């Protein structure tokens, strides 16, 4: 095993919160501000970890389990994510399905924790989160199925080892559709702007942030770190599809992957600066369109 295949996934652990910094700096640049420091997410995590936690007497252990399960799911998914054509740390046949349902598990516990507080406001966010994820999941699965069909493999490592510049020449249209669908999924799953606004904590339109309102201190730090991991891993999926650089040197490939992640963060920042959040009623539309693109990509392949 090449040392790069351990260092690169581990770099995700360290670099994931940096994505938030990049996104925020891009948005600040668009708004003509200087913006918060690039490392703001790290400062936030540090601050939150040194706070105490307050728990409502109406909550049970589920409320405390939510953030922990969420973060663990993110960590396992990170271990499943292959980077730059190198197999992941924990690859096995069929880990595609585990990968997709790790997010479902994390979401399930976040939703339960939100409902556990007994707050109607959080229940509303939970309902929306579940509704939109039910539409995002087929899109993700169809995208993964398309990639599996291209590569003939059922593990993420096999799939992304098979996606090379040569695949782009042969099946470019399918891969482009999958990339676009994955971009929409990344935006939707990470509560980014056309679907949800990550900045609003007190708006009635929000989805993800409302569910974690009652978490504070270390619990919220876990949630924040977990969501940065989620952005990193799902974004990594997209970067693996869109930027399959294969120089033969794993360090150079890894560098290409990391710059791809940086470009993705900037792209998300651009989307957030130039687009308005969709009406809640229109969000299923957007997710359906993403699913349609994944389905098209699959049909183009099997025709």
């Amino acid at each position, binding site marked *: 095993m090449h040392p790069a295949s351990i260092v690169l996934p581990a770099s995700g652990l360290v670099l994931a919160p940096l994505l938030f910094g990049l996104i925020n700096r891009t948005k600040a640049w668009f708004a003509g501000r200087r913006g918060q420091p690039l490392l703001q997410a790290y400062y936030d995590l540090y601050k939150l970890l040194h706070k105490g936690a307050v728990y409502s007497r109406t909550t049970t252990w589920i409320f405390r389990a939510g953030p922990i399960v969420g973060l663990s799911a993110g960590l396992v998914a990170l271990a499943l994510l292959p980077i730059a054509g190198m197999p992941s740390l924990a690859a096995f046949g069929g880990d595609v399905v585990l990968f997709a349902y790790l997010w479902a598990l994390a979401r399930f516990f976040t939703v339960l924790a939100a409902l556990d507080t007994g707050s109607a406001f959080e229940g509303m966010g939970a309902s929306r989160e579940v509704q939109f994820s039910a539409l995002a999941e087929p899109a993700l699965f169809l995208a993964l199925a398309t990639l599996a069909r291209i590569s003939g493999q059922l593990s993420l490592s096999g799939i992304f080892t098979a996606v090379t510049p040569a695949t782009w020449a042969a099946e470019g249209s399918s891969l482009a559709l999958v990339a676009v669908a994955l971009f929409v999924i990344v935006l939707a799953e990470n509560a980014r702007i056309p679907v949800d606004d990550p900045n609003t904590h007190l708006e009635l339109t929000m989805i993800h942030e409302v569910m974690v309102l009652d978490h504070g201190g270390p619990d919220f730090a876990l949630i924040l770190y977990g969501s940065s991991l989620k952005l990193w891993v799902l974004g990594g999926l997209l970067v693996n599809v869109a930027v399959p650089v294969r120089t033969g040197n794993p360090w150079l490939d890894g560098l290409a992957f990391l710059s791809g992640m940086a470009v993705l963060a900037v792209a998300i920042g651009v989307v957030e600066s130039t687009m308005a959040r969709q009406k809640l009623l229109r969000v299923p539309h957007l997710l*359906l369109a993403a699913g349609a693109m994944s389905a*098209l990509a699959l049909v183009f392949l099997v025709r």
Partner: protein
Amino acid sequence: MSTSAELLAVAIVLTNLALLGSSRMGGLVRAMVVQGLAIGAFPVVAWAAGVSAWAVPFGLFAGAIKGLVFPWVLMRTLRRTGVSREVEPFVSCGMSLVIGLVAFGVAVWMGSRFSLDGMAYPTRLIVPVALFTAFVGLFLIVSRRKALTQAMGYLVFENGIYLFGVALVGELPFLVEFGILLDAYVALFVMGIATYQINREFHHIDTDRLSRLKG
């Protein structure tokens, strides 16, 4: 070459989905612009693949008519009649998308049943895409409330027939001529819609009253 034809085919399929999913009239017209231009580019790509050279002016002409003139006429009618900007579908846009996907599956299956071995079509996708475009056009006609969207559905349907003609270009110029004939008919159709809108403006279909408008 075949990849550029394939990208065009993908673009046309995406514009079809946009037509199904868009809830604003402006979005529909924009999708029609893209679709018309992509469709006009098809014969040019076919020429690069070795079809006779008159495919190029033909493609440019078709692209100009379908991608620029028709949307312009539609946009003008839209502005002049001052109808609301919503599409007002009978079948919701999300449902239309799902139906569109099913239709695409059917089109691919039907396309695989055609044997067009001797033809000069630049990509194997063109027959399913042509069928799909025709399906979408028909669906837009039956599922949208406004007369203007029905005209658009008709144009999209015509685009599908035209694409089918492109698949046979060089072999069967007659079919292409047929497409042009339909184009002329569509222009008439658009005019008919404009008249309809004028009539609706006056809440009358009484031509007697209209003739009195002449100064």
